């Protein structure tokens, strides 16, 4: 158990109790309040004004007169099939991207976890290192590779595998590649943490008992690494659903992901109430995976103590 209100800490804790009010109010003002405002705007009518939505609370001459709530923005989302398709497409793209990430990340984490400690550190560092270089620029780097006249096409044509360039950029393929590339470290780290803790004696025991390597993996390692798999997948899936930069730079005109649509709804159509309703629905979709992830984290915290 961590340190608590024990005798000699009393003074410093009083100081800390007072000091924590600052970040507390900061978060109430800049995190919770904005969230409530977006909820409010999502039930307001759009009007041509600045700001372009009707106020929630109506103040008349006699003071407070009532609350205006409209669910027309939500109704619009559901009646207009467009948004349903986009939500489904975003979830699908994030899910496939996550799966591809797992297929590549698992063998990497497994391999790293089985190296001698010195090498493990280096290999792990090599996974994390690109994270420190701008995300935007790393996504951008793929444009030069995937282009019709990019390095990969020129190379494949050069060695005679293909004679016309493959269309690899501005389509769903490029977005999947972008997701795998950008989120690979987030998949590998929880998997590695899990696989590294895994008791190798169990594997040896399985081998002693005559299990073949593959069988030992399927029967022992894989089931034991399920928490790592879930953690890694959620860590990739949750941000991938609302991803903006990757579909905006690598996706095609028909790559509809909700982050990008929300951006357009706001910056191009300027329909704030609909943009707010779009984000509330996105959050509702993400609540289940987020809660799942939180529970996993708390369990991990408790296990670590």
């Amino acid at each position: 158990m961590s340190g608590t209100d024990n005798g000699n800490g009393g003074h410093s804790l009083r100081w800390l109790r007072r000091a924590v009010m600052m970040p507390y109010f900061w978060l109430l003002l800049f995190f919770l309040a904005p969230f409530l405002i977006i909820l409010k705007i999502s039930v307001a009518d759009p009007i041509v004004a600045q700001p372009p939505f009707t106020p929630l609370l109506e103040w008349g001459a006699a003071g407070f007169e009532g609350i205006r709530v409209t669910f027309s923005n939500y109704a619009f989302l559901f009646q207009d099939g467009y948004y349903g398709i986009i939500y489904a497409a975003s979830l699908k793209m994030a899910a496939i991207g996550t799966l591809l990430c797992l297929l590549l990340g698992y063998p990497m984490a497994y391999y790293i976890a089985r190296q001698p400690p010195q090498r493990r550190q280096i290999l792990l560092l090599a996974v994390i290192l690109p994270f420190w270089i701008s995300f935007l620029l790393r996504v951008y780097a793929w444009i030069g590779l995937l282009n019709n006249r990019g390095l990969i096409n020129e190379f494949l044509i050069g060695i005679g595998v293909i004679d016309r360039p493959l269309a690899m950029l501005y389509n769903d393929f490029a977005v999947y590649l972008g997701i795998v590339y950008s989120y690979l470290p987030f998949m590998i780290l929880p998997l590695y943490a899990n696989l590294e803790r895994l008791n190798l004696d169990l594997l040896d025991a399985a081998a002693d008992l005559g299990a073949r390597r593959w069988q030992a993996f399927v029967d022992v390692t894989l089931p034991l690494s399920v928490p790592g798999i879930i953690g890694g997948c959620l860590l990739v899936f949750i941000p991938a659903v609302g991803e903006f930069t990757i579909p905006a730079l690598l996706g095609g005109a028909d790559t509809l992901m909700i982050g990008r649509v929300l951006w357009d709804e706001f910056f191009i159509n300027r329909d704030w109430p609909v943009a707010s309703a779009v984000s509330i629905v996105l959050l509702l979709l993400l609540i289940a995976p987020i809660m799942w992830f939180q529970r996993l984290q708390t369990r991990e915290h408790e296990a670590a103590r």
Partner: protein
Amino acid sequence: MKGRSLPLASVVAFGYALLYVPIISVVIYSFNDSRLVTLWGGFSLRWYASLLQDDKLIDAALLSLRIAVVSATFATALGAIVALALHRVARLRGRLLLSGMITAPLVMPEIITGLSLLFLFISMADLIGWPMNRGATTITIAHITFSMAYVVVVVRSRLSAMDESLEEAAMDLGGRPVTVFFDVTVPMLMPALVSGWLLAFTLSLDDLVISSFVSGPGATTLPMLIFAKVRLGVTPDINAITTIIIALVAIAVATASIVSSRRRPVAAD
């Protein structure tokens, strides 16, 4: 059971290639004289020279650096306080709300964070007349808010690994709480504070989505400028910027690893 099979090794090699080939290709082509990406026109530094003449780009880079330094510093201070309070104060009032608000930004889609903060700033301007203009200040506030969450994660993991008996000894020897905090606790937390600061700095320097929402007409950060350029495809001067950033990161990582290897006996992670 050592994982030395050939298929496994080739998947791992592919994974590392995926991580590094794009970065390396950008570095190589930043020295390319030709405007065309695939055509090698000989070694040249012309794209670096053109960066130096691009005033808009230099302004954007300076603005981003300023925002990153200020927001990382505030985020580290506020985040460390939250981490300490959550870790040490057992009966903290509103604990559940605080820990909820501090972990939520980690999983909140940034597009929603950006949109909701913009609405807040507009409502505040409406109600109390501040902030009249959105720009560096509003971007800094937004960055402090989301990077604080990352600082808390880093500091908390350090706190749970830390030995508290040193602080208790200092208290027993009659040290005043504030003195003990700054002379004992802060030095012990230093590695976490430094990595939390660097993380917050990087996140701020890198942020495109949230900045785009909360910025005003006058303030363009480096990612916003880069995004506007690369939306139209590959531009060689962006290759040069990328290379400079890679070089800076490499220097920072090398310095950090030298410093931490010297400190190893004390830090004992």
